């Protein structure tokens, strides 16, 4: 009962209508089942009578008296309130929001506010996310099995893929996810790094918040620390003896292979040396095209189930999982015409009917069509073309004529010309299913894609050293092998689909690293060496800062510990011990980092040598474990920005999720991969 009264009082204060209190009291009294009381009050007011003394004993009346006392009290307060309008609002704020705020929104909406409700919760959510990904960080990271919403199985330790498939819904965790997605788009590697670093930053921020720092102070400190870190980072550049520039990448393939191996080793440790060399060769083929822009799309991966990873190989040119449509399955020194249209009888877009007037027309109708086709193919053949690649259907009649022409030709000259022309003048026809593949093939052989069936000019004809049908496992493939190709393909072998997919992601990271390398050639020591150095320098810097941001900068510096720490933890080492060693060692060698395994990996030649697995601190320069400067730079930037974004939130308002079917996503669309 008393709570009811207090509630009423509060409502009144909130609404600031003290004068209405009485009426309201009477109305609301009904709600609180004070029917009796109401009657009494009404009676009192109407008759202006004294209440019989006997009734005073009635409990309801006791309350009435209490209420009346409140009324007077409030009336006096209201005068005060009118004097201080600001104060009034303040007081109103203190009232628990729930009923008032919730009444503004639809039922089911969520509203969280304040340090405990919003900030700590956000931080916790990010921490939880990080727990999932942290165990897959580094060469000794473990895989995750993720089954996504269409029941596809992923086995991977690639943070970007894990996050993409598990459908993160928490808003704060989603910010982290977006940050890692940005990293994926910007550099293509280091996605796990972003998640880890951002969530560790948040974890440290939590301590600072509990210490009493405000969110904005922490954010300021973090941003300051970040700019300082980005200032220090270039100074840590590793001198590897060779000055890499955009133009001399091709000459230092050994070094590049080492750099790319770092990226691969975090996914497929043990195979990194073999795959690193493969990717390096593939990338260098592509970057040879004379232009400075390196397109990741030009390194293709063709996954073929069966065999083992070590049976993978690289082809300069394209490899397609297709069959060849025509009889000829092998052409050397090919001259190729590429068509995006189906090679078939052209059909009008407009609906039309062929109108025949006489029997003669009927008789000659299909004959004319056939001679037309024959002349077309013959014209193409006469221009020296022996391979036709088409993005559309190749009509059966055309296929037949493609065959016929070659036979005609060989038969007509068989008299004196040598028999070898038999094989030389043959047309091969390949049909591609995807328009992107068509574009890539055209790029490989340097041909112009013709939208209409006509004889190509000299410039439009593509050349290829060797085109042939091959079989790997039980998959038949068409290989376009071209020495001067600007597209290279890595044929991946593996015993399960998952291994192949995971391997493809690792290669993708490596290729992206190469792309980053074409933009920026600076190298940093890997294995957490750069991080420890940053941590040390930042700590020193923090001590020079006079303001409260000193604490935040210090914490930012400490966050860098997490990288070698997690590396060590995932390898089953004592992380504290390793950290201590690293800090001590960094006094005189700033390239000291945490080294996993040895560089003696499994390769084709060296299969029997025992591999000593060490997990120790070591000089990164000597062990040739390099990270790219650009990856680190963006990772730091994205992680800090994401952490600051999460920190700057103090309220979370979630609208009620709308019912009904999800908006349709056009998943099946052929997007530009």
């Amino acid at each position, binding site marked *: 009962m008393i709570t009811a009264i207090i509630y009423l009082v509060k409502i009144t204060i909130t609404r600031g209508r003290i004068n209405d209190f009485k009426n309201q009291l009477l109305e609301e009294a009904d709600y609180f089942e004070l029917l009796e009381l109401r009657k009494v009050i009404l009676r009192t007011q109407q008759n202006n009578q004294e209440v019989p003394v006997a009734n005073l004993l009635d409990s309801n009346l006791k309350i009435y008296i209490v209420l009346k006392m409140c009324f007077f009290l409030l009336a006096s307060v209201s005068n005060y309130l009118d004097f201080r309008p600001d104060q009034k609002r303040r007081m109103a704020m203190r009232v628990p929001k729930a009923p008032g705020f919730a009444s503004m929104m639809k039922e089911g909406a969520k509203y969280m506010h304040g340090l405990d409700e919003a900030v700590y919760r956000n931080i916790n959510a990010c921490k939880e996310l990080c727990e999932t990904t942290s165990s897959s960080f580094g060469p000794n990271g473990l895989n995750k099995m*993720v089954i996504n919403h269409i029941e596809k199985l992923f086995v991977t330790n690639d943070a970007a893929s894990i996050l993409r498939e598990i459908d993160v819904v928490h808003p704060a965790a989603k910010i982290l996810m977006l940050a890692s997605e940005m990293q994926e788009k910007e550099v293509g590697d280091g996605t796990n790094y972003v998640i880890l670093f951002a969530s560790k930053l948040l974890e440290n921020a939590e301590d600072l918040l509990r210490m009493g720092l405000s969110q904005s102070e922490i954010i300021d400190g973090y941003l300051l620390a970040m700019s300082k870190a980005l200032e220090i980072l270039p100074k840590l550049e590793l001198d590897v003896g060779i000055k890499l520039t955009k133009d001399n990448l091709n000459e230092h393939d050994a070094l590049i292979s080492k750099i790319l191996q770092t990226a691969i080793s975090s996914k497929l440790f043990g195979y990194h040396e073999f795959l690193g060399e493969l990717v390096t060769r593939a990338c260098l083929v592509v970057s040879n095209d004379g232009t400075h822009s390196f397109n990741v799309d030009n390194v293709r991966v063709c996954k073929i189930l069966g065999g083992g990873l070590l049976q993978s190989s690289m082809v300069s040119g394209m490899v397609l999982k297709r069959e060849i449509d025509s009889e000829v399955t092998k052409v050397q020194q090919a001259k190729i015409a590429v068509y995006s249209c189906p090679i078939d009888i052209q059909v009008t877009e407009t609906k039309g009917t*062929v109108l025949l007037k006489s029997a003669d027309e*009927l008789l000659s109708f299909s004959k004319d069509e056939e001679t037309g086709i024959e002349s077309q193919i013959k014209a193409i053949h006469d221009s020296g073309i022996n391979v036709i690649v088409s993005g559309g259907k190749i009509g059966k009649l055309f296929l037949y004529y493609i065959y016929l022409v070659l036979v005609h030709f060989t038969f007509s000259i068989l008299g004196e010309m040598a028999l070898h022309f038999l094989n030389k003048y043959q047309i091969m026809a390949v049909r591609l299913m995807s328009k992107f593949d068509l574009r890539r093939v055209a790029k490989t052989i340097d041909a112009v894609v013709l939208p209409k069936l006509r004889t190509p000019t000299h410039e439009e004809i593509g050349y290829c050293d060797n085109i042939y049908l091959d079989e790997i496992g039980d998959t038949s493939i068409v290989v376009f092998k071209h020495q001067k190709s600007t597209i290279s393909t890595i044929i991946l072998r593996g015993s399960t689909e998952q291994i192949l997919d995971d391997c493809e992601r690792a290669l993708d990271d490596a290729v992206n690293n190469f792309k980053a390398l074409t933009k920026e050639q600076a190298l940093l020591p890997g294995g957490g060496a750069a991080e420890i150095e940053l941590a040390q320098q930042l700590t020193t810097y923090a001590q020079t800062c006079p303001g409260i941001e000193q604490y935040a900068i210090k914490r930012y510096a400490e966050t860098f510990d997490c990288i070698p720490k997690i590396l060590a933890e995932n390898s089953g080492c004592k992380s504290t011990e390793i950290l201590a060693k690293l800090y001590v060692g960094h006094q005189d060698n700033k390239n000291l980092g945490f080294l996993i395994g040895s560089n003696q990996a499994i390769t084709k030649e060296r299969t029997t040598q025992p591999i000593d697995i060490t997990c120790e601190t070591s000089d990164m320069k000597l062990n040739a474990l390099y990270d790219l400067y650009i990856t680190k730079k963006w990772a730091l930037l994205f992680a800090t920005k994401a952490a600051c974004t999460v920190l700057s939130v103090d309220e979370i308002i979630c609208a009620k999720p709308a019912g009904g079917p999800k908006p349709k996503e056009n998943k099946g669309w052929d997007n530009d991969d």
Partner: protein
Amino acid sequence: MQPMIIILKEGTDSSQGKSQVLSNISACQAVAEAVRTTLGPRGMDKLIVDNRGKATISNDGATILKLLEVVHPAARTLVDIAKSQDAEVGDGTTSVVLLTGEILKNCRQFIDDGMHPTVIIRALRKAAAIANQKVKEIAVSVKTDDAKEQRALLEKCAATTLSSKLIARQKEFFSKMVVDAVLILDDLLPLNMIGIKKVNGGSLEESRLVAGVAFKKTFSYAGFEMQPKQYQKPKIAMLNIELELKAERDNAEIRLDNVEEYQKIVDAEWTILYSKLEKLHLAGVKVVLSKLPIGDVATQYFADRDMFCAGRVQEDDLKRTQKACGGAIITTVENLNESVLGSCQHFEEQQIGGDRYNFFTGCPKAKTATLILRGGAEQFIDEVERSLHDAIMIVRRAVKNDSVVAGGGAIEMALSRTLRDFSRTIAGKEQLIIAAYAKSFEIIPRQLCENAGFDATNILNKLRQKHAENGIWFGVDISREDVTDNFLAAVWEPAVVKINAITAASEAACLILSVDETIKVPKSVAETSNAAKQMGMGG
């Protein structure tokens, strides 16, 4: 009152940690258990009834696993490697699954003891590399220069594969047939150029190999009976056109203004058909095959002129005919000449069991072969077909890679011994793991013995003793319940089969060990009940 923190979508199932690794291992072992008894010459078959009620009898690991529809994510890996083995070499699918299961089983104790999975994975990779190296080292290369010798080698390989199949009794008969079939093919050894035709009835021994093409008589129209059924050196036209009265073009329309013209049009349609037939006749074609129907007008026309025709021939049959007899598949009868027509020595229609078959033999470019299988039950012939497929694949591999190892558990014992010896040379945890990996290889001879009803421990002891004395080719002798030199006993397998099996099994084992967390996002169309979701994970 307070909303919960939900990071992931509602209904997302996630499990992690050591227990996750262990449960994945258990799931894989359950799968391995399912195919365990099918290994070897004395392996038993499985009868699987799928959800449509179709019964399949098989002892082919890949076939069984495919039909089982495994849903457990980790166990699906095993199905995948069986498929990969099937794709790469075609045989040894059961052994690859068994081997993976056994490696995982032996590694289980290390996980239990708290060893870090990455340590195990690295050791396994190293061991696999050593094993592969060893296989390459001891594999015996058989020279291919001598055709006769190569043939003997291939036959032995085929016989070894077939000995573990349903048709083990007829292995001499079939291994010869399989080798013949493969040797007919061209360099690429395309599998689809070996046709397998199944005819119910008769006995297995009545199966035959046709160096050329044979296919079942197609649907025929009136007049077919009058056509001759036998030719010597006929010219063959393979068509992709319909020999029937029909509209020339779908969207063509004829408008006429007088009655005389109408009759002309009708005549013209007939003329079109007859001119096609006439052109074929004039070109001297004796046998007309078409992918599309050949109508009764055409059938009777051909019958009058001593020609044979068959319409609605299956596309792959037609393609194989073309490969065998030369020529091309013709899409128009204009410009017919010698080059587009095929020919063969002999064409005949024959009765096989209850069906009539068209035979094309003595083909000039015979790069294709047809196996006609006879046998009782349908399931039985199906299994024979699968067995022959395995044998064909093995022979194809053996043609490409001519090194062989001894089967019957011999190579496994040799590897086991090598690895065990190697493990003793290294210090540290890896010693244990490599020793466990070495032990895993013993599952193959052990299972061979168990399936044959022998005392596995006894035989294995004998084998270990022989191998310790450097008898690297000693394996299980199924016929005498003893050990014997399987290389001399001509139980041969291509080395590439073993290399692939070891690689695949190790990669799969590593993959399963490297997973420490499973996250299952609910299906996007989340209308399934909760019970169904949980069942999905239960696997």
